[in-house]
């Protein structure tokens, strides 16, 4: 999930991972050219502005897939929501119910904070799109943005388990790429460890465990898909056999582009869902012209108090 204009915090949950090691011998990958659908999904959210009673948020999801060497996409949204203290529970509950037929109130006694609502709603949309992808694609490779960590406030274990299970049922394999990680071995990030091997390869990690109620539903690897200097954390569904995992990676290599060691399909999903500045202007135009809602320009306290030194935290 991508947060336009919102500071992306690295997950402190990862601090609970101890005794992490990288296997010294990488798994060397070869391209498998067998025609396989590569599909990816990502969502994006952005705070459009504030109103006297709450915030206006836009979110959008993108699904991209490569089939017969052609990239295709479906974009859902933008969905524009006016979130207030009064409607936030109702809104979240309605979306949970619509997407997963579960009432939020049953699962969570307390309401989400209004400032967390954009990420929570986008996460909800993302999980729904992932479940739809898992349901509809057969024998494919499904690329998710982020890790396969569940049991968090916005991703119940059961929900992610169901998505992975749906994918397996349709003979698809989920590969989750993280753009950033805090996992370190000997104080060095796992993605910055250098091996004297010719890419593409995977490096398996060991010694990772999660602290309940969180649950890591995938095994964590470091993937370096080409000669560029970039490596990524890759989570692969734990229920998939070792051969199946390698096969999925090799099909990905044979059916997708990897300009910076990152799958193009996932990159496109990210790009397509991101809100550009002109879209934000257009959305503001939409809410003003169609709904007559005036956005309040609150003074930027950082700028107001600290002048040129007040650019620490940037909100759109």
């Amino acid at each position, binding site marked *: 999930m991508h947060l336009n204009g919102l500071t992306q915090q690295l997950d402190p949950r990862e601090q609970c991972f101890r005794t992490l090691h990288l296997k010294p011998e990488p798994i060397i990958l070869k391209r498998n050219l067998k025609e396989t659908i590569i599909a990816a999904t990502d969502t994006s959210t952005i705070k459009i502005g504030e109103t006297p009673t709450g915030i206006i948020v836009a979110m959008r999801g993108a699904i991209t897939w490569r089939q017969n060497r052609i990239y295709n996409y479906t974009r859902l949204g933008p969905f524009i929501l006016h979130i207030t203290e009064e409607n936030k529970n109702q809104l979240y509950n309605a979306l949970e119910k619509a997407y997963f037929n579960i009432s939020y109130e049953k699962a969570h006694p307390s309401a989400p904070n209004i400032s967390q609502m954009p990420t929570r709603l986008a996460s909800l949309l993302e999980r729904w799109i992932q479940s739809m992808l898992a349901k509809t694609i057969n024998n494919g490779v499904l690329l998710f943005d982020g890790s396969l960590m569940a049991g968090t406030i916005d991703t119940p274990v059961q929900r992610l388990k169901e998505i992975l299970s749906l994918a397996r049922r349709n003979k698809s394999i989920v590969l989750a790429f993280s753009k950033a990680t805090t996992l370190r071995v000997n104080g060095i990030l796992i993605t910055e460890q250098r091996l004297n091997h010719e890419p593409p390869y995977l490096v398996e990690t060991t010694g990772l465990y999660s602290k309940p109620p969180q649950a890591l539903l995938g095994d964590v690897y470091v993937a370096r898909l080409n000669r560029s200097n970039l490596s990524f954390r890759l989570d692969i569904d734990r229920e998939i056999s070792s051969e199946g995992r390698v096969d999925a990676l090799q099909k990905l290599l044979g059916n997708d582009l990897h300009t910076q060691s990152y799958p193009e399909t996932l990159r*496109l999903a990210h790009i397509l869902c991101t809100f550009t*500045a002109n879209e934000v202007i*257009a959305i503001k135009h939409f809410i003003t012209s169609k709904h007559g809602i005036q956005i309040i320009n609150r003074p930027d306290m950082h700028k107001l108090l600290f002048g040129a030194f007040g650019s620490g935290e940037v909100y759109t």
Partner: protein
Amino acid sequence: MRLYKKEGNVLQIISFPTECVEKGDYLLVEDDEAGKALIAQVIDVQFAAVPGVLEELLRTLSDGGEPLMGEDIDPMEIAPHITYIQDANLLVCKIRATLENQILSPSSSWLPSRSQSAIKKLSIPMLMKLAKVDGKLPIILGGTKDSSLLTIDASEVDGTLNIITGKKGCGKSHLSKLLMVNLVGYKATVVVFDLNGEYSSLGLTNDGKRNMYYDKIHSFTPSQNFKVSLEQLHLNTVMGILVNALHLPGTSAREFRRLWKSLKEQGKLTMSDLGEAIRDLNCNQHVKDALTSRFHSFANSGFFTDCPGEAMLLDDRLLRSKNQGGAIVINLKNTSNIDRQIIVEYVLGKLVDSLTNWKLQAVFLFAEEAHLYLRETYWDDIVTRMRHYGIFTTFITNQPDTIQETIYRQADNIFLFNFTNEHDLDVVSRAARVDAETVRSIARDLPPHHCLTLGRVVNDFPIVARVRSLDIKTMGETRLFFSNKN
């Protein structure tokens, strides 16, 4: 539309696609608080620098450069708003005047409110009304983009120097014919140097019938129905032809002057007597040779005759058109360069003569591609000295650099058709009555038969109009090889 910037006399206005503003349109920027409004003309339409547009365009391309195939499920219908913002225009406008209490002033020194100003399109009829471009002698030039007529006042062409220019085939001659017949309609005397023989049939309709100008258009073809006898000529006119057109040196000119006076005293001012006199002349051989060669040029032109019945009295023709108006069309088609110069020298000399003696009030002279027959020194002469005599010239050319810069600087009206060549636009943009950006920007995009009118006739509000058609036999079409084969 919203006011964005003002720099000098240039306004930048943000406009949206639905507002349909084009180059050449006029806008009224009204500031109610100030009680004033700016009248500005759009000289360029650009994309507004909307942030994020580049990203928007780039992301629709995949790595291979092929457009991505996809579908947008947009239940809230935001996409039209995004397109609306992406297609926002930046209108670059030149301030033409300030309107205060229905009175126009050329000032652009005040700043209207950016947040409160209302901007709307100003129709050409309204602009014309404000600018008081009307008058008692209307000439309808054509239609403007907003379906109104662009009407100028014939009296604004009176006493002026005009230029009609544009690239080949865009309708310059057509406009000059339109101006010419309208002036004739208002009983003006018009003389046309018709380089391609296309003005001769202006008295006929397209289907060959006589029109209202039939009796007023008099076409003269040198050496055919336009010949003169030496007796009709004033010595100054002949000397003008010899010195300016035929480049006769000073000593020979003095000898000729003496010879001419002698023949005149004897009552023998004929071509044959002149030839004989030169043959019998007892003087320096070089002088004699110079005079002989000039005499042969005279004789070969076929323009001079000894037969009184063949000789045409140009003064009479001019006088006849003085009362009822008329056009003397001098058909210079099939005339050699030297002969053209002889004829033009003669006609101009005669005109100056008639005007000096107040036989004529004033003459409108239409000169097509004048560089082909007008000597260098005549340019300044025409715009300064002859103007005071009452010769009001309209130059028509597709090579703007053949007209001297001083002419552009003094031009009162410019009728500008399409030019794409930067050099041509640079030349025209030296005109004093308009800014270079307007000329460069608007003229480059003018469609065929559309003319940017600048100067006095439009009270210095440049206006684009499609020149109206005329039901006259124009004969200006280019002869084509393949025309009969299609």
